[in-house]
């Protein structure tokens, strides 16, 4: 997947772009806080091997990252969702060419309380009924016959996060609207606390937060498009078996920045090592073949 490759890559960066960035050994990365741990780990390893390298990573959020990307202030932008049309437009306006790479996968985990012994699977349709504001669900019994008649507490990431976006697109569709009584929080650890603390709670967040709290939480297997109930783990997410909740994480690289050795080297290093490294921070790597393809694409852009 790539952006405006047809534009000539010689386009001058606009005046805002700090000069230091294009020639020095500095690599400037910003964007999603979801992707941050992966890129941080990459940078950490990269700097061990290249002590002179200078990689900076900010966390302005996917949206904030693209804004800085368009302003020419960064070389690489992290995102937990694909770039949106308005963002494409402004990048075009600024004359910035870029390419999108999928760097890893996240298994969006739907979790319930440990003491919840009745839920053994859920379908996307049931999820829709539960989470939609039109669903009329208040107790577990409303979801499936035989489940206890106890009121459900809903925990969801904040409405402006990539995770929320992805979940509501998959579960609620374009038109859907999340139920108003859901407790929203920007902080996934807070959601973990919420579900851990309420017996009838349900929530969702990135795989890593489930993986780290397996003792307190129970991930609900989700019925996938081939009709099997699959729980999230490294394999099912990577293979795509855990669908539709395997979601990709992205980095966007500015073409002109690749002329800078440092940026090129770092990007190359990232694509080579992302698989292994993302697993060490709680995400899931893509299959090796995907990274190889990405590396080829990178070389062709950089003209190597």
């Amino acid at each position, binding site marked *: 997947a790539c952006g405006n490759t047809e534009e000539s890559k010689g386009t001058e960066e606009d005046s805002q772009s700090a000069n230091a960035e294009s020639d020095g050994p500095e690599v400037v990365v910003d964007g999603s806080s979801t992707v941050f741990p992966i890129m941080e780990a990459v940078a950490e390893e990269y700097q061990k091997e290249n002590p002179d390298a200078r990689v900076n990573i900010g966390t302005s959020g996917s*949206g904030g990252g693209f804004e800085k990307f368009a302003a020419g202030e960064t070389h690489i932008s992290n995102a*937990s*969702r694909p770039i949106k049309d308005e963002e494409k437009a*402004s990048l075009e306006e600024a004359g910035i060419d870029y390419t999108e790479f999928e760097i890893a996968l996240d298994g969006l985990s739907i979790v319930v309380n440990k003491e919840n012994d009745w839920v053994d699977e859920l379908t996307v349709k049931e999820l829709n009924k539960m989470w939609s504001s039109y669903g009329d669900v208040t107790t577990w019994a409303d979801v499936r016959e035989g489940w206890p008649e106890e009121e459900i507490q809903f925990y969801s990431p*904040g409405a*402006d996060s990539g995770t929320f976006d992805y979940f509501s697109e998959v579960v609620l569709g374009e*038109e859907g*609207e999340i139920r108003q009584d859901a407790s929203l929080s*920007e902080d996934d650890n*807070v959601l973990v606390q919420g579900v851990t603390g309420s017996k009838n709670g349900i929530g969702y967040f990135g795989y890593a937060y489930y993986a780290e709290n397996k003792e307190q939480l129970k991930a609900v297997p989700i019925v996938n498009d081939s009709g099997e109930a699959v729980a999230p783990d490294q394999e099912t997410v990577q293979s795509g078996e855990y669908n539709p909740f395997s979601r990709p994480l992205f980095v966007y690289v500015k073409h002109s920045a690749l002329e800078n050795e440092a940026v090129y080297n770092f990007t190359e290093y990232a694509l080579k090592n992302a698989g292994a490294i993302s697993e060490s921070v709680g995400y899931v790597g893509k299959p090796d073949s995907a990274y190889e393809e990405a590396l080829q694409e990178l070389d062709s852009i950089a003209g190597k």
Partner: protein
Amino acid sequence: MTVNIKRMIDEKKSNRRFLSILEKSVPAFFLLCASISVLTTIGITLTLLVETVTFFNRISIVEFLTGTEWWPFGENASYGILPLITGTLLITAIAMLVALPTGLASAIYLSEFAPGNVRKVVKPVLEVLAGIPTIVYGFFALTFVTPMLQLFIKDLPIFNALSPGIVVGIMIIPMIASLSEDAMSSVPDSMREGALALGSTRLEVALKVVVPAALSGIVASFLLGVSRAIGETMIVSVAAGSTPTLTTDVTQSIQTMTGYIVQVTLGDASYGSTTYYSIYAVGMTLFVFTLLMNLLAQYISRRFKEEY
């Protein structure tokens, strides 16, 4: 006579030219300093205004001001700021209920009752409270205060306005206590003597003489405290949830104006989207909101001023 001071002073008169230049340039420099705050306000207004106008081109200002639902995401977005305003008011009100009495009482204790060395120690210790990052307070609210409250209020949800409200209050205690204490300390001792010699108790001296004389400083500290409460973000977003609800029920989850602004600025909204512009409109509302509050406060403090 050993030294002729007069002559020496006269000799130094050559310095006068330099002094008089200094005397003229110093106010200019201070005026410059003061202008920075004006420039800041202008900067903020401009920063906010351009995007606010864009926002109001898309959403009617009437809907914005009168709507009772705030859900600026997805297809059926609705932009009624009232829930955010009530959220802000709720947090501010709770915080003030905690901070004003406690802060003022601490200030009175430190300035009028405490032995000198207690004051020397307690004041800085309290001030440390002011430097703890707000995120820490946020988790303190979520993982300590809320469970404590749940002991008393059975069905208190994990996200509610009460707990972060209290913690915001705790956070601004040092500001109110410390600044008010300073104001009271600078009331001349001769006034305390005058009152004590008439048989006043320490309490009466504090409430009838010192507090009125220090009122200007106390009000200023209150104002800074209220402002801080209105502007506080992290504590609220961690412990109050992020659910804009039009309610006065302190046990419900709410969202404040500032909470919303951080949510969007550090979140995922692409700039150019209506959501993105909405933060400027909310910022502007907040700005006007504090402006009104300040006008009111200035009016009040002007009425109760005492000079000495």
